């Protein structure tokens, strides 16, 4: 354009500028497009597609799919053959198709006619109806209508006939073509997996040129807004919100844009971000309880779900190395304006808490870390000072102090308060004094309002401890206990201590962490269960003997909240145990850690006064000084004793002792710690890190960014707080009453991590509608698991069998619920809890015996404790070579079984008979006699004298009896010295335990049913699954107790089983509606009507010495077995309560084959199915005799029976 000269700018220049700007814009646009095309998530998607393609191709090469392909080829041949055969019939088919064509025509004609007639009829009826209404002539046109109606019916019939003819003609044609169709269908089914993969490959890497080009165009930079292959993957979560600038915002998680393999199996070993989620059975997949479409990602992991790269999502590196790597590679830095940083690796379980507050017990197996944190939070009594609104435990975790002078000396109290771990390293009581913010040589205050001398930490602590002791003494005057009525004997006590069950909850492990030989005394080892109560080492030095006696008799009298149950000890047993502990013949109970001694530290008067000045500042200087000088008659603080008590009370309040312990007069005081209900939702800037980050920066050489990052995470604060609770006071200027008060617990690194994980999970509830709402069964299980844990049932009872994993010849892994049989040369079965050590020890021992011993070829014998369809039923033995053994998981519970049997079997020292009160080395039985038991009797001793195993207990016991028994235990096994204690259940605990076992039996029922069904059918997993028409994995899932599989497909398994008339496993009894049919009047009357001697004869079966002679071993109505002549080891449980106690179907199963219920039991098969025994007593087959015996067992206590009873 020419310059017209009428502008004040230069057109040419402007054009140049314009051209330049356009060019720049163009370049920028291209740059933008290119940059957009190479965003990290797009690159990730490209890489993932390549990875997926590679994997799918590799899958096609697997043996399984190759076999399928080969099979497909043979089927393809079949298809061709069928096609040829059909081809041969072509003429016939053509003829038939002609018939079809004609039939179609005919049908069309008839159908039209029928429609016409129908329309005609409708019209006629309308006309007639009109006329009838108008002329009030209801009979009008009757004959006419009948004729029309008949015409319509006729034509309709004609249509139906034509329809049938057509259908038949079509069927004829199809019948001729059927073989081909069937062959094609078979081919399709057989190659389904292959076709799926081929389709995927075709999609990812199309062979067709046009599609290839189309794909390039779709993802071409600049064109990829239309319909790209690479696109953001997101889930929008309606019910899950988070707080953003004071509003609630729905979560949108786009994580899958990069983490493309996260919800798919098969990428376990792929690199991040493509790795599969490690627990697809629990998360993300549609079958799992947490499908990605409902929960997304950030609700558990936190971080920013709407960002699309590693930095903006607020990912969190693990360790210095990764941090550096990320910084270099991604320019990673903490997103300081995002309040929900991603949880660190290893703490993801924190995300469980927000939804699972009602079901933490249920998820324990799958979320071990956070549930461990939850348990520690409870065990160490964190909840007592730090309120967590929903926390289920309310009891005070420490013992009542209301009569502590009856139990302890003031000297002990003082030394204990000063440093509890110095006496008992494993105690849960934390340390309050002598910590870093009151360090020995630090100046705590300048006395007399800043004008006096420096008060040092050492003086301050000593005065404080003395004051607390003085206060506790003054507040709780001694309530003297009566003298015990019996004199004890230490040797008898040792036996009573072992056999009454004390070692279920207590251990006597040495103070230093020592390890013991695997064959050693369990009492000296620390296991989970035997740490329920305190380690008893050294207790004789602290306890008053009379107090101990009365404590053993009834612990709740001293401490109503105690978890120590009442063992209903006789006076003699209690006195004996007391004597054993106090006299300590074994050097255990007077053994205290080195350096431990008890004394009340000397308190300086001026330090006490200084403490009073700080605590009573509000009372004013004048008043205080008057008290010190003795001028205030109400508070004569010139007397040190009075001053100590006053100061001591303030310390008790200051440190919140009453939160954990009952202290008279402080029952209603509020706990002192910060509430933690939603602690982790506090933004991180509200946490006082003090100078710790800077101190660490100095010591660790951190740069500014690292220092500031340290302050950005909740878990860092907590971990430091737990490890060094007073460290946030470092370098701070504080007066003594302002200093931090959190005590020192001495947690290990693992414990710190676990507790931190739990507390980091305490967030504001953002998941109201998505929250897990447990059903009745789940609630019962959760409450039950809790109650079982709280009352330490597992200390004495085996609750779940051990699991043994081994590989077969093909290298496939199998896991069976089983126990080891005793190994050659051994008297006890192997310990499964310390398996590796045990085995190494055994190998060394055997090599000493026999130099040719080959540990790899050693054959283990396992006894199955649950039905394992691939290996056998309960009680069956299987052999596994040592080299095939992969892993061993110990049974849940039952350590006391071992302790008790060890006592019967294995003296501390075989040479030393003084271990028992019997000079011969026998064990005291309940009848007061001493007997020795031989090695071969181990199994029998276990079944007879040790606490019973509770495998499948819910199947066995009637719920209501169980509940009553828990509340008020009665003696069933008269031979046992170990006792079922009377527990002090919290509200609802007994019911929860009874319900738990009942529901557990119900829950396990599908598993049990499926396994039994497969055993009965003698089928492999694949075969049976194919018959039921469910995938083999689903059937395997059911057999392993997978809830989704059970919910989805168990009905099919059951229906199939019903069709096979499989009824070996009776359905579970609904615990709320339990009935015993055998006791119904109808049943009994029918029996007696048929044979009035029926029950009498049945009773004879049980009583007559020539028959099964049940009463040879079983107690009955308080009458000892075999007329009172049998020895305790022969005694079996009282039959008295059968009708109320046991479930009929269980008793039936039990009598039929006891070893299939409790493998190893002494109860024999009394009615072999293949023999007709006991005919003289009760004629009939074994099954009939068992029924009769059941009739008697369930009706023997009835008063209303006509005769014979």
């Amino acid at each position, binding site marked *: 354009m020419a310059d017209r000269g009428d502008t004040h700018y230069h057109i040419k220049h402007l054009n140049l500028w314009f051209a330049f700007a356009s060019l720049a814009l163009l370049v920028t646009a291209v740059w933008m497009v290119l940059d957009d095309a190479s965003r990290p998530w797009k690159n990730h998607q490209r890489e993932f597609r390549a990875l997926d393609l590679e994997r799918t191709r590799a899958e096609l090469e697997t043996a399984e799919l190759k076999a399928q392909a080969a099979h497909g080829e043979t089927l393809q041949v079949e298809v061709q053959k069928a096609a040829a055969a059909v081809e041969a019939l072509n003429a016939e088919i053509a003829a038939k198709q002609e018939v079809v064509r004609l039939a179609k025509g005919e049908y069309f004609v008839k159908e039209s006619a029928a429609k016409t007639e129908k329309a005609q009829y409708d019209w006629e009826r309308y006309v007639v109806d009109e006329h009838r209404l108008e002329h009030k002539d209801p009979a009008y046109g009757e004959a006419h209508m009948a004729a029309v109606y008949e015409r319509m019916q006729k034509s309709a019939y004609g249509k139906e006939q034509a329809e049938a003819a057509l259908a038949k003609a079509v069927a004829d044609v199809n019948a001729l073509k059927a073989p081909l169709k069937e062959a094609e269908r078979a081919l399709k089914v057989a190659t389904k997996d292959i076709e799926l993969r081929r389709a995927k490959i075709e999609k990812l890497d199309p062979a067709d040129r046009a599609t290839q080009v189309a794909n390039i165009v779709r993802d071409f930079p600049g064109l990829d807004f239309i319909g790209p292959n690479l696109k953001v993957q997101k889930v929008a979560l309606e019910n899950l919100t988070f707080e953003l600038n004071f509003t609630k915002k729905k979560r949108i998680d786009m994580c899958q844009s990069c983490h493309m393999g996260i919800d798919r199996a098969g990428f376990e070993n792929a690199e991040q971000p493509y790795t599969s989620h490690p627990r697809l059975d629990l998360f993300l997949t549609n079958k799992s309880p947490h499908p990605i479409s409902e929960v997304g990602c950030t609700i558990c992991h936190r971080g920013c779900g709407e960002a699309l790269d590693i930095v903006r999502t607020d990912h969190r590196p693990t360790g210095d190395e990764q941090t550096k790597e990320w910084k270099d590679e991604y320019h990673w830095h903490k997103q300081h304006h995002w309040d929900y940083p991603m949880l660190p690796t290893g703490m993801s379980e924190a995300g469980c808490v927000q939804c699972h507050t009602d079901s933490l017990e249920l998820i324990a197996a799958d979320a071990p870390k956070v549930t461990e944190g939850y348990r520690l939070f409870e065990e160490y009594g964190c909840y007592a000072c730090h309120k967590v609104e929903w926390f289920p435990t309310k009891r005070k975790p420490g013992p009542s102090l209301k009569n502590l002078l009856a139990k302890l000396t003031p000297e002990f109290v003082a030394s204990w308060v000063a440093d509890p771990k110095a006496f008992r390293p494993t105690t849960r009581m934390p340390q309050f004094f002598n910590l870093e913010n009151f360090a020995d040589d630090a100046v705590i205050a300048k006395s007399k309002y800043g004008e006096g001398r420096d008060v040092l930490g050492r003086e301050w602590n000593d005065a404080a401890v003395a004051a607390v002791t003085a206060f506790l003494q003054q507040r709780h005057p001694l309530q003297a206990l009566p003298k015990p009525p019996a004199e004890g004997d230490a040797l008898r006590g040792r036996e009573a201590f072992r056999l009454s069950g004390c070692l279920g909850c207590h251990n006597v492990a040495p103070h230093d962490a020592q390890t013991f030989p695997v064959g050693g005394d369990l009492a000296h080892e620390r296991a989970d269960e035997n740490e329920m109560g305190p380690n008893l080492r050294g207790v004789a030095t602290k306890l008053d003997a009379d107090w101990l006696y009365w404590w053993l008799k009834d612990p709740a009298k001293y401490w109503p909240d105690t978890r120590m149950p009442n063992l209903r000890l006789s006076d003699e047993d209690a006195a004996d145990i007391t004597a054993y502990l106090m006299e300590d013949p074994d050097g255990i109970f007077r053994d205290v850690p080195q350096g431990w001694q008890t004394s009340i530290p000397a308190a300086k008067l001026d330090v006490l006064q200084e403490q009073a000045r700080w605590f009573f500042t509000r009372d004013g200087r004048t008043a205080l000084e008057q008290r010190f000088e003795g001028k205030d008659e109400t508070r004569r603080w010139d007397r040190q004793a009075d001053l100590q008590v006053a100061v001591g009370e303030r310390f008790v309040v200051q440190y919140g002792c009453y939160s954990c312990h009952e202290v008279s007069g402080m029952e209603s005081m509020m706990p002192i710690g910060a509430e933690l209900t939603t602690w982790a939702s506090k933004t991180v800037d509200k946490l006082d890190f003090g100078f710790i980050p800077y101190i660490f920066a100095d010591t660790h050489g951190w740069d500014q960014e690292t220092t500031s990052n340290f302050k950005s995470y909740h878990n860092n604060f907590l971990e430091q707080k737990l490890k060094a609770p007073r460290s946030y006071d470092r370098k701070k200027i504080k007066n003594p009453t302002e200093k931090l008060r959190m005590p020192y617990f001495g947690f290990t690194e693992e414990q710190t991590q676990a507790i931190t994980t739990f507390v980091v999970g305490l967030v504001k509830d953002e998941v109201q509608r998505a929250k897990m709402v447990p059903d009745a069964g789940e609630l019962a299980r959760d409450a039950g698991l809790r109650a079982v844990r709280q009352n330490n049932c597992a200390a004495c009872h085996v609750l779940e069998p051990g699991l043994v994993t081994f590989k077969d010849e093909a290298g496939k892994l199998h896991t069976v619920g089983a126990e080891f049989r005793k190994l*050659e*040369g051994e008297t006890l079965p192997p310990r499964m809890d310390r398996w590796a050590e045990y085995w190494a020890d055994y190998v060394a021992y055997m090599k000493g015996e026999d130099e040719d011993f080959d540990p790899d070829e050693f054959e283990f014998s396992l*006894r199955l404790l649950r039905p394992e369809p691939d290996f056998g039923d309960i009680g069956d*033995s299987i052999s596994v070579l040592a080299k095939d053994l992969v892993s061993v998981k110990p049974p849940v519970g039952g350590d006391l079984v071992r302790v008790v049997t060890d006592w019967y079997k294995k003296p501390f020292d075989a040479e030393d008979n003084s271990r028992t009160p019997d000079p011969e080395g026998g064990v005291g039985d309940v009848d007061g006699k001493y007997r020795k038991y*031989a090695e071969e009797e181990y199994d029998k001793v276990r079944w007879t004298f040790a606490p019973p195993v509770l495998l499948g207990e819910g199947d066995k016991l009637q719920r209501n009896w169980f509940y009553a028994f828990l509340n008020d235990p009665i003696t069933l096994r008269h031979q046992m010295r170990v006792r079922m204690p009377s527990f002090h259940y919290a509200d609802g605990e007994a019911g929860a335990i009874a319900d738990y076992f009942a529901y557990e039996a119900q829950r396990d029922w599908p598993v049990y049913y499926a396994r039994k069904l497969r055993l009965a059918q003698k089928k492999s997993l694949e075969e049976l699954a194919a018959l039921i028409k469910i995938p083999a994995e689903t059937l395997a899932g059911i057999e392993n107790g997978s809830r989704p599989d059970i919910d989805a497909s168990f009905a099919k398994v059951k229906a199939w089983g019903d069709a096979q008339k499989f009824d070996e496993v009776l359905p579970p009894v609904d615990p709320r509606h339990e009935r015993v049919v055998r006791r119904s009047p109808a049943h009994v009357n029918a029996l007696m009507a048929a044979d009035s001697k029926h029950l009498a004869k049945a009773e004879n079966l049980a009583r007559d010495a020539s028959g099964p002679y049940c009463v040879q071993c079983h107690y009955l109505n308080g009458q000892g077995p075999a007329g009172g*002549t049998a*020895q305790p080891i022969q005694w079996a449980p009282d039959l008295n309560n059968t009708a109320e106690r046991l479930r009929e179907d269980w008793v039936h199963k039990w009598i039929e084959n006891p070893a299939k219920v409790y493998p190893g039991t002494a109860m024999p098969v009394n009615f072999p199915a293949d023999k007709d025994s006991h005919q003289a007593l009760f004629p009939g087959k074994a099954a009939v005799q068992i029924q009769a015996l059941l009739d008697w067992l369930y009706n023997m206590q009835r008063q209303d029976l006509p005769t014979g009873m």
Partner: protein
Amino acid sequence: MKILTVSTLVLGAAICAAAAIPFTKSSPVATSNAVAETGTVQVKVVWEGEKPEALPALVISPEASKGCCPDGVAVDSTNQSRMIDAAGGVANVVLTIGVKDMPVKVPEGRKYYLDQKACRYEPHVQVVPMGATVEYLNSDSVAHNVHVYATKNGDQNNSVAAGSKAEQKLDKAEVVTVKCDIHPWMSSYIFVTDDPIYGLSGADGSATLEGVPAGKYKVGYWHEHDSIGKGKSDEVTVEAGKTTTVEIKVGGKKKKAGR
């Protein structure tokens, strides 16, 4: 009745006394080898060192053994767990010789029994070839339960009424323990062997193992008591048609503490 015949043969003099009768002593093992190619091994098991005190008698309460022995005879309380004669011969030691390429066989028509008589098992120890079927008899007039602790062959626990029986095929080599839960002092061992040559030492500690192919062997031994346990003899050379003697010195072993 076959049972009776066997019992009579076995029991010999004493009725309520239990002596270890080497069942297999007189049952040479048939092999495919001609007799001329095999020799005999004469084994003597002796206690080395000072003879230990006899084990204490079994504790048998009169009440529990009510009905066991007719006519008021008390149940024999001899502890058979370790029996050593005056010359130091150890009874009831199981002796076996493994021979390469010579599988163990159950002699045709051979039956094995474990009887319960006067509330003791008879015999206390026996050695049977792998694959043997053992019948558990009850010659008493009271009921017993035969509780078989067999880790490999499978446990079994049947109540066996007076005069009745149960049976079990033992297909796998192991030491099977048999107990009665009603009479806790009763116990017996069945050594199921996979070696073709086997025997049991008699009251004097001696046993004759016949039909051993010529060659060099070590004789394996096993005894229920920990102080003897199991082990092997020195190597012996067997020559065709000749008898080789070997002495096995046992005893004094200590059980590993805490096992």
